[in-house]
């Protein structure tokens, strides 16, 4: 399995927004905002070098062991192509923009299966998620 990288802030990896409902394409073009339920990673650290000061590497075995879903670059591209062929018009519009971007950045995704339960208030979801996803990244 090839390594996957992320560029982000020096101190931390940006947390996912677990309340978000974006599709893959909406996430890639940030249609609904900056934070979505996914985290973008890349096969090629050079292709994302402008995306933050710190290079992080995804600890893939831990992601799998804990039941999160890793969407490979090839699967992501396939999904975007499928959306271009069979989505509704708005979904196709977004997928059209997302596909060249995903290819250029050699993008893959992590779809987090984090369960905050009922004890975490909605306003605290981001900070809660931050503490959870940090363990899946090491400095690259």
């Amino acid at each position: 399995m090839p390594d996957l990288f992320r560029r982000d802030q020096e101190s931390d990896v940006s947390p996912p927004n677990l309340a978000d409902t974006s599709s893959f394409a909406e996430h890639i073009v940030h249609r609904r905002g900056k934070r979505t339920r996914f985290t973008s990673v890349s096969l090629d650290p050079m292709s994302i070098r402008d995306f933050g000061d710190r290079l992080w590497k995804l600890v893939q075995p831990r992601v799998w062991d804990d039941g999160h879903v890793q969407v490979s670059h090839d699967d992501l591209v396939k999904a975007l192509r499928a959306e271009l062929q069979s989505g509704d018009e708005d979904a196709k519009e977004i997928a059209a923009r997302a596909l060249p971007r995903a290819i250029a950045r050699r993008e893959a995704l992590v779809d987090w299966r984090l369960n905050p339960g009922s004890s975490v208030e909605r306003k605290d979801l981001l900070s809660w998620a931050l503490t959870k996803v940090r363990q899946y990244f090491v400095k690259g």
Partner: protein
Amino acid sequence: MDLFSCRNCVQNPMQGTTFGHGHGYCLHWGSVIREPGTTTCKYLHRKDLPNHIVDEGTREHAAQFAHVAGPADLITEKQILRKRYSEKYAWDSHHFDPSLHAMAMYHRADESAETAGNEGKARFIQAFVGSNDGRRALAYASLVRRYMHHCDSWTSSYRLVLAIVEETVSEAVVPVAELLGAGSEEDRRAAAGWEVLYCRISGLQEFAWHASLEVLRHPLSSVYGSIADMDMNGVRSSLATLKSSWRDQIIAKAKAEGEYFPPPSPSSGE
């Protein structure tokens, strides 16, 4: 985050996320932008998608930067000092950039719009049309979109949009020295080509929104297969067959609404 930076904003017309080195120029703040990839503001108007489709994301972004009355750092959210353009300083410091200069000159015309009138601004914008230089192509589509947004109407911009229709399928060439990112020159050129295409298409879609013109709501609807194959030539040749229909419907709309080359007003000089 680059999609929320000045690089992806129509107010900084001559740079994109895939090309355009050096400083940018923000027409909203009248300021040289030193680091266009890491700055932003609450007035972001994205190049890559029509405003009405990404409204949710841009509203969230605007709220995040609502406390900053100027250009800001994308990460720290701190305000950045505005920097006025000086042609003399540019020459004296050996940093003269023709693209940046052009935008600063446009801004001066923009600032004097009350005396020059909208017609003056529109004329200036038209000076950017008809070039296969990717920077000027991106600038034209961006300037038209900004103009249309400010006018908040389709009537003042339909002639400018007709020129976008004519140029939508034209290849836009970016000098290799201006290309950003990693990868082969071919890949970076391709990325720049998609960026210019989508800025133009988004301009047509914003026009369709203002004019309630169904035919341009989804201009790419017949080329999704070619996009899935990343076949830019296929996209261009298919869109070329639609150009005359788009043109005719825009003109028909303008005629029906009495906006098609109306008699000049006494002050317009025509």
